[in-house]
């Protein structure tokens, strides 16, 4: 047994277990496996860092969400929000479960189409939809959600070109008593702008308004906001049907349901503050029952993204180096950072070790591999002294990370799916130099001999 390398001593403030601030976690969080597959085996086979998705968890979350709504309202359809995670394998699981596609750009639209999703099963949202893509979407029967008056004009032109009446929906924004109010998307209800848009569509006579859409925000912790949103949408639907010949056949209440992730600045743990999917369902469907005329049910669309995937995603990362900072904090350099975890700016992740470490817990700063000051995974977390090469599992990271990740400084890593039987499947390979440079063109005069 060799001599231990010298470490300067650290002074740590011991929190009382009954302190006003609650119980700081002095327990080591250990995760040895994901769905029964050993973490080390995963990183040995697929490398580190490594994104891992659990199909079991995804399907469970989807079924729970679908049942929460369908057992309360008889006409429900989920649309898988592509931007949340558009890896083909991930989309496939949700499409298999019955979700249609919700896209916000021509790129995502093409992706869904290539994937075999018919235009009719695509909800096309977004503040900017290029003219050509509007034309394609209209001719393929997609559910186009209009965001601006300019888009109405564009679509009327498309209608003339295609010689058809285009079924459309309008996107709405409204005051539902929360801050910030997402007022930059769609037409405002309170100011009368939404009704103006309806009149404008009616005057054009080339579009058939049949749906209303609104998306009030993201990571919404207040279910009452949904109740107000739904109520306002139903009331607008009634107004439209009373004053025009349009029949609103669907209401799309968007998404924004929170996952069990810890938003920075919210003190209590997600288990306490995040409403259950049943709470969201109850809020929305009770508003529907309260205000709908009966007989015919408009279809209720939901574009839940985060809630269905966030908790199914993990990032396995390796500790590559450590030092002590001048303020006494331990500093760990991981092989994954904000290049892969764009959402690290808002969320405090769960950091789990793969095996129990000896020694006492100390405050640590967990950094990524970028040579940038902002590359912080966690500013302050209690960790035991880690050995170089030890693994850490970061979660939940299923939402937005593999769509917002950057090829910056480092290659983007592999992504693995663990199926229902516990088998692993590589669903995206680690990038290589070629992937990064494939689209580059080097002018001849700059090429060296």
């Amino acid at each position, binding site marked *: 047994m060799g001599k231990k390398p010298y470490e300067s001593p650290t002074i740590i403030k011991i929190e009382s277990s009954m302190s006003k601030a609650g119980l700081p976690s002095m327990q080591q969080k250990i995760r040895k496996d994901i769905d029964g597959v050993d973490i080390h085996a995963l990183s040995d086979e697929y490398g580190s860092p490594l994104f891992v998705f659990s199909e079991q968890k995804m399907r469970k979350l989807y079924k729970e969400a679908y*049942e929460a709504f*369908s*057992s*309360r*309202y*008889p*006409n429900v359809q989920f649309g898988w929000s592509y931007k949340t995670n558009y890896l083909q394998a991930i989309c496939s699981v949700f499409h298999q479960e*019955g979700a249609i596609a919700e896209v916000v750009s021509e790129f995502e639209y093409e992706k869904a189409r290539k994937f075999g999703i*018919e235009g*009719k*099963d695509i909800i096309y949202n977004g503040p900017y939809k290029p003219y050509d893509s509007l034309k394609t979407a209209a001719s393929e*029967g997609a559910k186009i959600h209009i965001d601006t008056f300019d888009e109405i004009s564009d679509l009327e032109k498309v209608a003339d070109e295609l*010689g*058809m*009446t285009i*079924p459309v929906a309008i996107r709405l924004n409204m005051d539902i008593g929360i801050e910030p109010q997402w007022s930059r998307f769609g037409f405002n209800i309170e100011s009368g702008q939404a009704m103006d848009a309806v009149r404008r569509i009616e005057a054009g006579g080339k579009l*058939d308004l*049949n749906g209303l859409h609104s998306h009030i925000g993201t990571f919404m912790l207040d279910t009452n906001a949904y109740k107000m949103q739904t109520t306002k949408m139903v009331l607008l639907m009634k107004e439209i049907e009373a004053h025009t010949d349009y*029949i*609103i*056949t*669907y209401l799309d209440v968007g998404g924004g349901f929170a996952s069990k992730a810890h938003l920075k600045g919210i003190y209590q743990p997600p288990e306490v503050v995040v409403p259950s999917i049943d709470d969201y369902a109850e809020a929305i*469907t009770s508003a529907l*029952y309260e205000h709908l005329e*009966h*007989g*015919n*049910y*408009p*279809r209720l669309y939901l574009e839940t993204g985060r809630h269905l995937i966030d908790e199914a995603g993990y990032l396995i990362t390796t500790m590559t180096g450590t030092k002590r900072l001048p303020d006494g904090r331990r500093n760990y350099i991981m092989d994954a950072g904000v290049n892969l975890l764009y959402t690290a700016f808002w969320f405090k992740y769960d950091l789990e070790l793969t095996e129990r470490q000896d020694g006492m817990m100390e405050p640590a700063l967990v950094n990524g591999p970028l040579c940038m000051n902002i590359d912080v995974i966690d500013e302050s977390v209690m960790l035991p002294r880690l050995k170089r090469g030890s693994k850490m599992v970061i979660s939940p990271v299923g939402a937005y990370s593999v769509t917002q990740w950057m090829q910056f400084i480092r290659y983007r890593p592999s992504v693995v799916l663990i199926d229902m039987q516990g088998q692993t499947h590589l669903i995206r390979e680690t990038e290589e130099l070629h992937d990064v440079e494939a689209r580059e063109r080097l002018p001849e005069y700059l090429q060296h001999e």
Partner: protein
Amino acid sequence: MSKPESGCQSTFNMNSATMKSYFTAVISSYAEILFLQNPRYGLALLLISFINVNTTLSGLIAVFTVLAFAYFIRMEVEFLQNGFYIYNPLLVGMSIGYIFEVTAVSALLIMMAAIFTFLLTIVLYHLFLKASIPILSLPFTLVSTLIYLASLNYTSLYTQALYIKPAFVDLTFLPVILSMYLKAMGTILFLPYSGVGLLFVIGILSYSRIMFLLSIAGFYVGVFVHSMMLGSWHLALSNPYTFNYILIAIALGAIFLVPSIRSILIAMIGVAMSVLFIDASASFWAIYKIPVFTLPFNVIVISFLFVLQSVRFREFAYDIKKTPELTLRSYILSFFRFRLGDINLFLPFSGKWSVYQAFDGEWTHQGEWRYAYDFVIMKDGESFKGEGNHLEDYFAYKKPVLSPVSGYVLDLKDSVEDNLIGHVNTIENWGNYIIIQSQLGHFIEISHLARASIKVKKGDYVEAGQILGLCGNSGYSPQPHIHIQVQESVLLGSKTLPFQFVSYIEDDHVQFYDDPPEKREVESYFNDKSLDKRLSFTLDSRYSYDVYHGEKIIDTFELKVKMNRFSGRFYFEDQKGNRLHLAKEAGMFYLYDYEGKDESWLQKIYIAIPRIPLVYRKGLTWNDYLPARYALRTHLTYLLSIGAIAFPRAYITKGKWQFKDEQRIEGVLFSHPEQKVAVGLDQSNGIDYIEVQEHIIRMRR
């Protein structure tokens, strides 16, 4: 069609349309005496009946008297729709003309008799209507008897009594056994000549093979039974009232009952019974020198129908079509497509629930309360999560309970505490409940709702699918569940009645009109607004279609949405007058009752998509049934319809349809060989295209 204007009858300006409908009514009434619903046959019969000018003339006097009288009392033209009103006076007129020559005096007699018959017909019609029993020619029998009795005193009328018999109308060369059948047939219209009978038989044969076969069976069964009693074939054959056998056989075997083995047996029993009736009444009536007319036929058929109606005889023809073949076809199709049950409910919840107890369930659905359903939500074989010790652990707890029908809330209770798990309330065993009376008058009871969860009030009108309250565990309920039953009265706990669920989804398949067995997981649905809108066909809207064979347009046609102003039924009509009825109810859009030529494009639409559930799920399937001959494109129609009496299944072709996506439906008809069909729904309204057999029918824009 022009609407009847209220002023029309108050003035004496008869327009040509009214004249035409009077004329049609008159000739139709001739046809209806032989159960033929076709004015052309009536015209032929009228012309044939001129063989005996006197009878015909007095018949017509009676009819015109009645029409004038109806006009005089400002009766609405609609009454002409009902053949009974005219054919009874017609028969009375003919029966008078049969023995009295038409003179000024006898004409007066005819007119009085006709008006009296008319009055009696209306009186009897309204009395019989309560029991839904036809009056047949009962008024004729009664009034003719009256006239014959009265005329015994009118000696002046007898002086020119007519018994002229045109020689050529009797086919003397035929064997008696055949000529008597023909003669009986002729007698129905007071023309007891085998030659005339032969014409009638030819008419009936061309109109309906089933009626023809029944007329023969009825006649010879009657004669056979009678000859056994009398001991003489000849006497039995030559009895003047044998036409009653024919009428009874056709009426019971094919008109008022749906043709079937059972109906035919009943008809033959009726024929056999009529023998006794004819002999008895003839002996009695003979004293006063009056004929029995159609009295045996009337009494026997009416008695049978009264009893069969009260026992809800399954083959009772509630919907009598133009021919027995059509009645049979419609019955078989309705049986397979709509199951003929009269109490239909929607499932009282949203989403997937499991049947915990069905009819005759082993725990509580017993005795008077055997017709009830219990539903719970199950996941992985359990109705709860965790230990199941708390109400909140149960998936069904506090889930919305939706109204299974549209109707009025008559009674409810909302104050019973929900039991803790493991306890039941044996005092208020129905717990919190709601009793709703449906639009059709049935009483539906739902039990065990959560305390203080009911969202409707007594007297509220609720629509099917509207929220009533939340599922709970009140009353005799060991775990949260929904109990639903249909009962005889509004009183809580009254005797239950069988019912069926209109439409629900089971394993991505839509079931129509069925009772799911225990443990089965079923999913409810209510009309999707989008499909509802796309399949809304408003009155007078038009749809133009091009028919493609390959790339080439081979035909075009236009459909117009129309409404029958009597029945209120909607139908599509093409320019050739072919009709296809459509309906949207009970969670589905469906086509039915095609009337028109075979091989029309309208008929192809029917084949391609007889029914669409008003709910969309990708991959959802459903079954339906079509008349086999549409799918087979066969000309063996005659054989098929006769065969259908014994083998109904041979008469229909099953098909299976599936939603490929929100706009395209594909189907397979299980004919030999199988046929593929497809239907495209327009994004906004109507049917965009139909792919059927070798054609594509496409909407023109």
